[in-house]
């Protein structure tokens, strides 16, 4: 690991000022960053430790009915907050399907949003990677790429965003609160992560020095609580990243879908909101036929980036299954194996 200077600011303003220096990165729990630093993938000159900042570890209901989650709330504390899990069950299930209990206890909300791809060529400093080193090339294109992107990828980069948490968040129109050199601003989570195009080294809309201080879920989000599921296919049932995942949430009124939300994980460089699929579900009965139409719409632009054509059909089936499970109703308790299509409770084969 490269040498670095360590700074522990007392306030958000001090943190943002300290991060102005080039080569600086923010340190929260470090569950991803320290791993990357140990592998010499990230080589910051300076870490600004934000873990001691006051006021960023709260979950608070705001006057307009929205919910603000402080950037330093741990993944575990959020998922296990009883009120949170009741109002946003699909988010809690996604959180509990990610990483391990130890990592969820440490990892923060803000850090989860900014975690880096798990593309093996990004991690291997002997490989060419346009994301790690702009213009160096991409060894994933001709390499082991069965887990790589099928949507939104470019010749420069076929990596995927690994977060589970972001998938239901983007489906529920989450907003990211940012403190930067120009003061406070906010952007839709859907606009935080960038598709690679020719600049995969630029992963987000954040500017140097920007600090994520919170995530907000709008007042409408709990309206989906009765019909919401997260489903995730991985290479083992627990403690693995998604090959493909889907967050499905429905508002059902008088036997018809009043509103649908759908997002996919593991398929692109960002959590992938499938708005065209949502549109075909509005006003129709929640049937498998309708869900198959939605799944077809969600993947209509998908194309393999390597040995991963199977992910397109897998994603369609996971979308149908997630929508079917959501329509059947959110379980009273998160299943023993969160988000698993093989869970002993609640599995329906379609």
């Amino acid at each position, binding site marked *: 690991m490269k040498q*670095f200077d360590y700074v522990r600011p007392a306030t958000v303003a001090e943190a943002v000022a300290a991060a102005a220096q080039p080569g600086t990165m923010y340190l929260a729990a470090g569950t991803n960053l320290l791993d990357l630093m140990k592998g010499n993938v990230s080589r910051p000159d300076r870490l600004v*430790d934000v873990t001691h900042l006051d006021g960023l570890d709260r979950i608070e209901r705001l006057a307009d009915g929205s919910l603000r989650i402080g950037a330093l709330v741990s993944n575990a504390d959020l998922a296990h907050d009883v009120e949170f899990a009741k109002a946003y069950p699909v988010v809690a299930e996604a959180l509990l399907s990610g990483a391990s209990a*130890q*990592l969820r206890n440490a990892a923060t909300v803000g850090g989860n949003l900014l975690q880096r791809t798990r593309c093996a060529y990004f991690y291997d400093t002997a490989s060419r990677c346009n994301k790690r080193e702009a213009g160096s090339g991409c060894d994933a294109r001709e390499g082991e790429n069965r887990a790589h992107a099928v949507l939104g990828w470019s010749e420069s980069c076929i990596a995927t965003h690994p977060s589970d948490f972001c998938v239901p968040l983007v489906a529920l129109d989450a907003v990211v609160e940012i403190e930067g050199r120009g003061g406070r601003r906010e952007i839709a989570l859907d606009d935080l992560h960038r598709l690679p195009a020719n600049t995969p080294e630029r992963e987000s809309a954040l500017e140097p020095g920007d600090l994520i201080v919170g995530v907000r879920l709008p007042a409408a989000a709990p309206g989906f609580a009765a019909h919401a599921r997260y489903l995730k296919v991985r290479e083992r049932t627990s403690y693995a990243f998604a090959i493909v995942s889907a967050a499905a949430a429905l508002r059902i009124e008088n036997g018809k879908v009043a509103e649908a939300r759908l997002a996919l994980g593991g398929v692109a460089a960002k959590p992938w909101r499938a708005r065209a699929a949502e549109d075909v579900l509005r006003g129709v009965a929640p049937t498998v036929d309708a869900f198959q139409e939605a799944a077809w719409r969600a993947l209509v632009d998908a194309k393999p980036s390597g040995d991963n054509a199977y992910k397109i059909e897998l994603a369609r089936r996971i979308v149908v299954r997630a929508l079917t499970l959501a329509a059947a109703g959110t379980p009273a308790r998160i299943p023993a*194996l969160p988000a698993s299509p093989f869970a002993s409770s609640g599995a329906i084969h379609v």
Partner: protein
Amino acid sequence: MNHSISLTVNGARRDFVLDDPRVTLLDLLRERLHLTGTKKGCDRGQCGACTILVDGKRINSCLALAISHDGADILTIEGVARGDQLHPVQAAFIAHDGFQCGFCTPGQIMSAIGMMNEAQAGNDPERIRECMSGNLCRCGAYAGIVDAVLEAQAGADESNQRRSA
């Protein structure tokens, strides 16, 4: 630049001067305090052998910078027994052969204690397996580990009932 931190480790306050901010909690425990029960397996947050409790919660000590945990209360495997009296989870691992080579065992036991604090799994073997998935055992002693955790959980439930009765 030197940084001073203080930690409570297994109930005792310990002060440190760090001449390098790169030291992890794992390396601090092993190299500075010679508490080598906490194991360095993968050193990358994948195996769970380095699991300790920080302020009552289980984390991977290999992915935690010591300097960032100034003031933390740390419990390691060396701090769970009371003299010669084993912690109930330790005793249950022995009773159920919850190990073979033993390398992952301190992490398994600390993880199980943390899991019982979290009170999410109850006595459901499937939930216990899920909640313990961050601890790998390459000998494959998982069946004994689950049985040990089930017994320890049942004992904890019983003593809670006695306390509230």
